[in-house]
């Protein structure tokens, strides 16, 4: 899948390295490096996934259909789209969800984090550190870690299935709450399932800490949600390691989106400052103090400080977040009222002409939605900013930093390191391309 324009050797003055189809990422992307006279002149993550026009096709659709439709932006993290949608809808229509319904939303999000992070850790990312082509190849020498990961993934999916009917594109989320609440017996069985894999989560975290991680750090500006007393899923203010602190409604005051000709996804940058990073490294660095003490200790034991600037070590941070999500899921399940089902599954949401914003923490970083509604609750305009398009500029800067010291090496070595550096960020390319304002250059 790699093509090189010239002899491919390190002696060539001018060469370009292309990876036409990146593997072990979600969606379709390619990598282009241009090297001229021993200098790296371009490093591009080229996203060629065909656009699907979600922001256009949402126009005229009812607020009641929105979470079902936005889920289809991405099969890997549908809950993030459903959650950002319902929060934006409720924001527009002046509804705030508290109590058990809010707790259940956190629980659903725990399921998605566990499922998505476990998938990334054992099936997509760990093979990079082990020199293997895929997670299945781990069965021989790293079978325990693989089985831990798959068991966790299954447990995360079980949360999605119990709360939402199925793992991918669950059907239960609606504005105001859920279509149906999980029954007592279902909740009890779920708690048992998660309790049974909790030790595996701790063990997997310790295992990720043993992986040989390159010494590499970058001075990222981290951006994530921050909540007064929780590790963030659905709510909070947007803050950054550079001092940003703003209401989610004010996203445009600090961020701008722009087109890059080589990509069907929009890029984003901090106004006046440039690239920034969202995702587990950012959440962790900005919210370490919101993790329970025992999990903070586990993180230290795994060699993490309160901030981690090594993207290769994001695998450890993801594993720590799985531990958190398991513990949080158990806490939520234990605290739900016994007579949960006797309460209303949702609070009524009365549409009105209004604008609403929602922002939640997808496994790969925050996902920001803004809708303008007509009086009858149909969408006039929609804007969706998913995590991977926000990280694109940072991924390209990582590529430069990784490739530059390797320029005198052969193409294959450079390619392998660059692909790895992209995978560090678990990019979800399907997510990042569902925009309207994109241009595909035609020669």
């Amino acid at each position, binding site marked *: 899948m790699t093509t090189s324009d010239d002899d491919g050797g390190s002696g060539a003055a001018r060469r370009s390295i292309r990876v036409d189809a990146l593997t072990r990422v979600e969606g379709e992307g390619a990598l282009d490096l241009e090297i001229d006279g021993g200098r790296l002149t371009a490093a591009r993550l080229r996203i060629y996934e065909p656009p699907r026009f979600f922001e256009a096709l949402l126009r005229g659709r009812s607020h009641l259909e929105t979470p079902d439709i936005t889920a289809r932006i991405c099969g890997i993290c549908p809950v993030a789209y459903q959650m950002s949608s319902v929060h934006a809808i409720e924001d527009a229509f002046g509804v705030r969800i508290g109590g058990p319904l809010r707790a259940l939303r956190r629980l659903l999000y725990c399921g998605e984090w566990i499922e998505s992070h476990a998938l990334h850790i054992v*099936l997509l990312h760990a093979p990079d550190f082990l020199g293997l*082509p895929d997670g299945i190849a781990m069965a021989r020498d790293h079978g325990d870690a693989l089985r831990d990961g798959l*068991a966790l*993934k*299954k447990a995360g999916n079980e949360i999605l299935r119990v709360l939402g009917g199925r793992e*991918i594109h669950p059907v239960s989320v609606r504005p105001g709450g859920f279509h149906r609440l999980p029954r007592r017996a279902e909740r009890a069985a779920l708690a048992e399932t998660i309790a049974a894999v909790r030790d595996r989560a701790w063990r997997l975290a310790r295992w990720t800490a043993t992986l040989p991680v390159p010494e590499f750090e970058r001075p990222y500006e981290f951006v994530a949600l921050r909540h007064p007393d929780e590790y963030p899923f659905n709510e909070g203010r947007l803050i950054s390691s550079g001092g940003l602190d703003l209401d989610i409604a004010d996203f445009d005051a600090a961020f701008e989106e722009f087109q890059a000709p080589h990509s069907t996804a929009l890029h984003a940058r901090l106004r006046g400052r440039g690239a920034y990073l969202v995702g587990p490294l950012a959440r962790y660095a900005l919210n370490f103090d919101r993790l329970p003490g025992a999990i903070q200790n586990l993180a230290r034991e795994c060699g993490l400080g309160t901030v981690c600037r090594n993207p290769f070590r994001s695998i450890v941070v993801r594993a720590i977040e799985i531990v958190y999500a398991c513990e949080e899921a158990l806490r939520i399940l234990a605290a739900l009222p016994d007579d949960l089902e006797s309460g209303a599954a949702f609070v009524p949401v009365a549409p009105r002409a209004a604008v609403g914003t929602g922002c939640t923490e997808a496994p790969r970083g925050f996902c920001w939605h803004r809708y303008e509604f007509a009086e009858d609750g149909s969408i006039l305009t929609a804007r969706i900013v998913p995590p991977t398009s926000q990280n694109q500029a940072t991924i390209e800067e990582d590529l430069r930093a990784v490739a530059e010291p390797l320029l005198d090496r052969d193409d294959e070595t450079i390619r392998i390191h660059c692909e790895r550096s992209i995978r560090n960020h678990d990019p979800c390319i399907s997510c990042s391309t569902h925009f*309207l304002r994109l241009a595909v*250059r035609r020669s």
Partner: protein
Amino acid sequence: MSTRPRLAVWKFASCDGCQLSLLECEDELLALAQAVEIARFAEATSTVLPGPYDVSLVEGSITTEHDARRILEVRAQSRVLVAIGACATAGGIQALRNFGDVNAFAAAVYPSPQFLATLATATPISAHVPVDLELRGCPVDKEQLLELIAALLAGRRPAVAGYSVCIECKRRANVCIAVQGTPCLGPATHAGCGAICPAFRRGCYGCFGPMETPNMPALTAQWQQAGMTPGAIRQALRMFTAAAPEFAAESERHDD
């Protein structure tokens, strides 16, 4: 070893959910990887083996000229080609563009629509190449996916029913929500999900697409009685399989 059937997984315009369904088979994944040779599955492995392939699973719909050419190559390299999911079998949610004037549509929302390299339509795989089997759903049901692979390994047709979600709904002993006045697309929708939505006290929104020979007018007449406006009926039919002929034709009948 080399006698194992060679499996390839391909992606076109889609959300990745259907191919992810394969990885959601946590318990069966390792057995699966032994039973078949995963020759190409970009989302899961860096191994990329050249064709021909015994079985190709194709996710996504055709929305660009480039993809219209690419699917011909996939077909040429595949002995059995299976379209998986609503995108691949009916165009998916992105086929909503088929109902509008794509130029006006693009001009309304793109700063530089002249640069667009996209087709005016999103079409199913079968509109471009012969397809051997289709698995419905948005996403496909993972049990059906496993049944498909087991059947292919055994050299038999997969057991996939052509009846409606209502049958599964009865089997699951759900209380029918349609008789309580909630519009439900179940009577016209292809089985396969196990009637998830009625079990969650909501109407089916048709993500498995039309069943064989649905009675659309009878269904929408009932929806009208339940108080749905023509606009709402049209929207309900234009979801994840909007371009499936039966749903598309019925939605055209309710233009207000």
